[in-house]
């Protein structure tokens, strides 16, 4: 299916319009939920780290340090992607599945359109570009959430938190974060598009395809998370 999806387009301008539309749908459409989740995760991570590590023997900057690394390495790419698997993945699977059961995909094929290419490649391209951008935003907001948590409590000062964020930064964690985001973007869009494209039956099967797409995506994200962490860290 992926080989068919990336065949030469019939007309590039039409595909480009589709890519832009999908980018808006995935990127702008998911911004709200990503922002809310990231702020709360950053704040909670900071509070819990402070709770566990605050003592007179450990410098308070450690809280910022740990929050930064855990947000960049795990919380932002993985949790954001799991949430996006639900929001974006189910939408992709049900959209393509509905097109299948209402013969819209047959209509594309009759016209001579490469249906996998027209329907799937814009979604995969948008996924591997917009999900990393959403993860970057998630990292910034997560760290911002940590700052707000510090400002609201007296456990760690905001100055210590900022100092912790900036000291001892290892660029490898940014690379790992980027790789995870790209791979997870590909997993979500390709698995859910596959489930939708090969749906048959009616409304019930479309719902089942969407559920399968989300579940398989989540499992594959966790599996890929493990592999990437093992290989790159």
């Amino acid at each position, binding site marked *: 299916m992926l080989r068919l999806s990336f065949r030469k387009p019939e007309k590039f301008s039409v595909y480009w319009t589709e890519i832009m539309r999908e980018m808006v749908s995935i990127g702008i459409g998911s911004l709200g939920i990503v922002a809310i989740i990231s702020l709360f995760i950053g704040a909670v991570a900071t509070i819990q780290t402070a709770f566990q590590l605050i003592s007179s023997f450990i410098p308070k900057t450690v809280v910022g340090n740990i929050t930064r690394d855990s947000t960049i390495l795990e919380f932002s790419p993985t949790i954001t992607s799991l949430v996006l698997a639900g929001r974006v993945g189910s939408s992709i699977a049900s959209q393509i599945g509905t097109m299948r059961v209402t013969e819209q995909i047959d*209509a594309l094929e009759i*016209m001579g*359109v490469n249906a996998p290419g027209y329907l799937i490649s814009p979604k995969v391209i948008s996924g591997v570009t917009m999900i990393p951008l959403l993860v970057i935003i998630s990292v910034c907001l997560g760290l911002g959430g940590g700052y707000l948590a510090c400002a609201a409590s007296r456990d760690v000062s905001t100055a210590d938190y900022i100092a912790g964020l900036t000291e001892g930064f290892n660029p490898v964690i940014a690379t790992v974060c980027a790789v995870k985001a790209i791979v997870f973007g590909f997993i979500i869009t390709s698995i859910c598009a596959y489930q939708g494209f090969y749906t048959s039956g009616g409304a019930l099967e479309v719902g089942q395809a969407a559920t399968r797409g989300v579940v398989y995506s989540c499992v594959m994200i966790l599996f890929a998370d493990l592999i990437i962490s093992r290989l790159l860290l």
Partner: protein
Amino acid sequence: MIEVKDIVKTFGENEVLRGITADFKAGKNNLIIGSSGSGKTTLLKCIVGLHEPTSGEVFYDKENFTTMHFEGRVPVRKQIGMLFQNSALFDSMTVEENIMFPLNLFTDMAKSEKLDRANFCLKRVNLEGKNKLYPAELSGGMKKRVGIARAISMQPKYLFVDEPNSGLDPKTAILIDDLIAEITEDFKTTTVVVTHDMNSVMGIGDHIIFLHEGQKWWEGSNHQIAHTDNKELNSFVFASKFMQAAREKL
């Protein structure tokens, strides 16, 4: 002209088409009729390439469509227009965008030309001014007409229609039948209609193929169908009390 030769189609153990050979005449309304489950839609899907036949061949003007690969089929498919049973309009596009979709993909026409073409097609199906509506805002009959408008936007040589009257009231069904007949005559298309509606059969059936249990059982015109002694065909044609009464008056 479209020719099918010895088409067999099986789904697992179920043999749906059992060696059908038929010609679909150019510039005529060719009807495939038969009761539910007789293999009408499967035959249509084999002809247009949505199903690959288990064995047998389909020829479009002597070109073997069955053995062509995806790229080879594209030039033939650009000459095909199809109206689906549920119209299969793209939900996310307006009426105008639906009609212009194949033009956007396969032609280098300027936007104004494409718009003119869309307006011409909409006028042809009596839906002028409905350009900006979405499929969800249309009635069943209007969806069928938009489906026809999209099917003729590329000026097809072959027009395929799957159950054009399903879910329509009798008056709208006759309008759709008349529209199909007019388009066949105006554009000189080879039209293949799958139906089990006797009004369509009697109204526009220039050339009729009757399928029964996956086989071609009878072939003829709407003038011949009422006078045949084929038992299965008679039980199909005169199934309704209205048709039985009509036969008694013949």
